[in-house]
């Protein structure tokens, strides 16, 4: 393969990768809300006082590791199959240790954006 071809392949592959990661305005807003309200329990990295089970996992991620037993990714941002109705049901009803979230905390618009972020096509 010529150097020019290699450069073209590299350019287009990077361009493709950038496009895949680019978020729409709604998804980007949702990511901000997710980082504030969801990530502290459902994110990836931990090391808290009580640790986790197995790998150092945050409480929500740790709970989902136990729940899914390897069938599904425990990190919410790694799921590609989440459905909007499920996300809104859990956010507004709570589930086990996760309490109800009010509209003065995460508004309906915020919730739609979080849903857009978590259910974006990948």
């Amino acid at each position, binding site marked *: 393969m010529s150097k020019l071809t290699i450069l073209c392949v590299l350019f287009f592959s990077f361009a493709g990768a950038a496009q895949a990661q680019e978020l729409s305005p709604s998804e980007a807003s949702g990511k901000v809300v997710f980082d*504030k309200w969801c990530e*502290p*329990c459902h*994110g990836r*990295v*931990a*090391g*808290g*006082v*009580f*640790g*986790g*089970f197995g790998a*150092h996992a*945050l*409480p*929500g991620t*740790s*709970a*989902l590791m*136990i*729940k899914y037993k390897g069938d599904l990714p425990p990190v919410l941002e790694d799921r590609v199959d989440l459905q909007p109705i499920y996300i809104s049901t859990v956010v*507004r009803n*709570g589930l*086990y*240790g*996760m*309490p*109800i*979230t*009010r*509209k*003065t*905390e995460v508004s309906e618009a915020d919730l739609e954006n979080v849903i857009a972020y978590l259910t974006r096509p990948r």
Partner: protein
Amino acid sequence: MALPPNLSQAEFDSALGEFEAVVGTDWVFSSDADVALYRDSYSPFWGEDEERIASAAVAPDSVEEVQEIVRIANRYLIPLYPISTGRNLTYGGAAPTLTGSVVLDLKRMNRIIEVNDKRNYALVEPGVSYFDLFKYIRENGLNLMLDVPDPGWGSPMGNSLDHGVGYTKGPYRDHFGSHIGLEIVSAEGELIRTGAGAIPGSDAWQDFHYGVGPSIDGLFAQSNFGVVTKMGVKLMPMPETFMNCTVTAPRYQDLQAMIEEVNYLEDSLLVGMPFWGSPVGGGLFDASPITELMQNGWPSVEQLEEFVTAQNKHAWSVSFHLYGPEEIVHATWAAIQRRFRDKIPGVAFQEEDLHNLPISDEDIPALPDKALLGIPNLEIFHIVARNPMTDADQPDGHADMFTMTERTAEGLHTAARTLAETFIDLGFPPATHPFTTPIAFYSRAYCVAILVPTWRDPAKNAASRALYEKCLDNIAEKGMGTYRTAPAFQDLAVSKYSFNDGALLKYQEKLKDAIDPNGIISPGRYGIWPANMRNNRG
């Protein structure tokens, strides 16, 4: 849907219309779906008639709006229930004390008014969370360390007003004790400022706490005498370094000597929060490994010493963060070791690495003890998150009870034994045992913790409530009480503080009748009912 007591639907609709005129229609929540968001997710009465349910919620954005809402509530005799961030889980959350109350949701009032790192304080509104304040301090490069509770999404104001606690040095762990200056909307809608804030034009509101004459600040914590709209918070300057250090003692009977030494260090303000543990007894919330030893009742001291010897481990440990310049941290640690060595034969010491502060953003996620460095987080939820032990029947929440004792081994053991025997009597595995250690949230008292599961299942909740109430009864017989509790248990908890035929509560009721003649602010909160509802007492 619930209505406020003694109000018709038409009257309530009229009041809601007046609320909407103040805050806008978007910020009055009266549909069934919206009001359901104000249920207590961890309620010990979930789905039952006794579950405390709001009639509506109103979310103002300014002090003036709060004042107007309070005036409207007085006209209609509608009980209001102010919440800050409404994340007071295990203690009622966003749900009111009286069914039919309108929740006054202050989350929208989330301005950080001032943070000063030369005089070391912050002035905040109710809806500011610890996460918000931490982010503000970091983004503005301010040289301050917070003292945060677990979890960190609550409000510095709200947590303080429920006597919440944290993890750093003694004066800062008592969150209400480290407030400085309040602004309050009274039950009649008047605006009051306390301390130096009562002098018009004062610049010392967050410097001088008392003002002159009696301080009324304490009336607004764990109570219902007004709506707090601003609070000053004393903050610790960011220390230069910290180092975690541990002392262990070999024998069961070394505990009292250890406690006395730790009391000296704590009361001399030399150390951060003492973290007590037992290498023999397991961790803070572990299932006790000495269950077998307890099968024939509470073991004798001789049996416990034999057990410790057989385990070939030290009986007790205490760790604390030392904060300050490196020279002082090392010198303090040297002095601690000398003092312990002089008092208790066989003690051992362990120190971890010294760290410079502040911790960088990159290093925070993997930091194991974030709260000890004032970094808000939600990692406490590990204690209620699904785990291999709970997976088969996962609770929906928990109700906490912390038995408060004096700082002695005898007090600690009395509390642990009383609670263990209560659990066993009611058919539950004991949550406490002879190696239970205290939590030193308050620097001058001990907490002995139990967590009782709550469910979205009436039968299971009935058993949990019975256990919780029996624990309150039994510790009271030993002269002990709790420091904080959910609305479901507040009347009972308060009734134990009954010296001189309940003189304290009677005094509070007189104040209530004078300060809130219509009884509209949080009726029943911590047992204080307005005169026309005193037969509600549970």
